[in-house]
């Protein structure tokens, strides 16, 4: 089926989108944290993917490739959002568990776009290092060393926050 999608077959493309729509939606929600925006993102990503689908080299990387387009789109949206709106999430009442998530998400937001992508693909999509390497167009060893470095950055982020984490 994936092979046909790369050849530009509409039906097969639709089937591929169906197959990966849950992963794509979850990706959009993880980054944008809002259902309406996630739906809009899915539409945009479908559009972009359909236009470019003939440029994927390996069918088996199609999922990672789609997720990557989604992440790029979301990261661009977040940058636009930062410019124009104020984050008011702090006003909601939240549980202790939620605070832990919010902290982690804040920590993730400090990472570079590329680091965010790597972390997301590895830990949230359970993508294989090999697939990530292909999709990022870098060697597998580089994926590993960048992931390692990113984990170190995350740790130092929490360590810097120190006591405030554990009240």
């Amino acid at each position: 089926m994936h092979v046909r999608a790369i050849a530009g077959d509409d039906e097969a493309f639709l089937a591929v989108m169906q197959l990966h729509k849950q992963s794509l939606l979850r990706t959009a929600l993880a980054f944008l944290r809002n259902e309406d925006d996630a739906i809009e993102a899915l539409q945009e990503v479908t559009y972009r993917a359909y236009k470019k689908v003939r440029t994927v080299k390996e069918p088996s990387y199609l999922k990672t490739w789609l997720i990557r387009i989604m992440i790029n789109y979301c990261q661009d949206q977040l940058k636009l959002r930062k410019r124009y709106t104020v984050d008011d999430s702090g006003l909601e009442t939240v549980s202790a568990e939620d605070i832990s998530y919010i902290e982690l998400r804040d920590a993730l937001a400090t990472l570079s776009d590329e680091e965010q992508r790597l972390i997301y693909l590895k830990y949230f999509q359970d993508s294989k290092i090999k697939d990530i390497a292909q999709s990022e167009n870098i060697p597998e060893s580089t994926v590993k060393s960048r992931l390692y470095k990113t984990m170190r950055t995350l740790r130092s982020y929490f360590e810097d926050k120190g006591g405030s984490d554990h009240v």
Partner: protein
Amino acid sequence: MYETEEARLKQLKEHLDQQSLPLSEADQAICRGMERACREKKQARKRRKRIFGSVAVVALLLLTFITSIRVSPVFAQAVASIPGLEKFVELIAMDKGLDAVIQNDYYQEIGVTQTIDDKTLTVDGVILDETGINIFYTIESKRSLKGLQVDYINLKAEGIPEGSFSYGNIMGEKEVYTYKDRIDYQFGELYTSEKPSFDLKIAIKLQGEPTLFTVPFTVPGQVKPSEVYTIDKEVDIEGQKFTIEKVTVSPLRVGVKISIDPANTMKILQFEDIRLEDEKGEVWGAIQNGTTAFGREDGNSTLFLQSNYFSKPKKLYLRINKVQALKAEEAFAEVNTETGEWLNQPKDQKIQLLQSNKHHAEFIMKNVDEVEFPFFFLGSAIDAKGVEVEIPTTGKYGDEEATHWDLNFDRTDYTNPLRLELFAYPNYLEGDIKIELK
């Protein structure tokens, strides 16, 4: 090592996975996205097909097609003073050397014609020097010449060395009654003759009907001798060495003979910005329309630049700032056209194989800053048994995102994988080479 962080990430993932998803809205979003893309693709496809059609023809005829042409007033005046030349302006205006040839009255009128049935071919004039001959000719008819095709061209003269041709003009969609073209025949080595007489054969096809014109002509004027600068200077760019052997300045072109050090760790591909510069900073660059280089297997090649023969500057420098190069082991692509598998290619993987079978392969390279890579990047193809597979037609076209190359192989009984020599690639070495010629 980072178990705590990994555990936190895993927890967040599980939390996110529990979120319910708006699936039916998602289906609608996918449909809307696809509809929009389909609509645009249909429009784009129409546009691209047209471009491809014409560009493929250009490639076959070894001609660069430029739609808008700017001509300096001085040049326009010089052209106007020579009867019959004004119709060729667009065929010579892209070359400073040709521009100077006209202004210095080195173009020679010939005016020999042959009429076959309702078609008349006229050799209007020529520019002849030791490196080659440019022949300007016209075909006229009372019948429309729309769709005229030049099948082959043959030029004979006593002792004429083998050389390379470039010719062909673009026919529009309109009904036309005049076809004009410039044949650029470049001799493989310098050639002079006391009284040069040529025999030109031009075979054309119009609506499937062939016509063969045979036009003998003699060039009356003296051939201007070339000026040769022997340099023999080894230079290097990021450690890769080559020698500028000599520079030959002739009216039609300047040839720069270069030999490349076989001990180099990288293969030097194209000298993109090689140019002549005079003391005032005026620049003569590569040939835009015609043969750009003669290459040889042993690493020697001659590159051709637009001529400054008539400009007589006080000082003249040859300058190079960047060359395309690849590590020797990356300078070829090895690909299985049946499985679409790459066995070797440059590590940065800028070129991708879009689709392939034994007849045909389509390669693609993403544009950098929306600029197309202007070269054909592949030379010859050798199959797994070491036998050459000819690529008789290649097409290059582009859209806003990428440059595409289409190759058609002349046979399908070859053994995969195919080894394709790369002779252009967007990987650069930079330096500042400046050699004083005079």
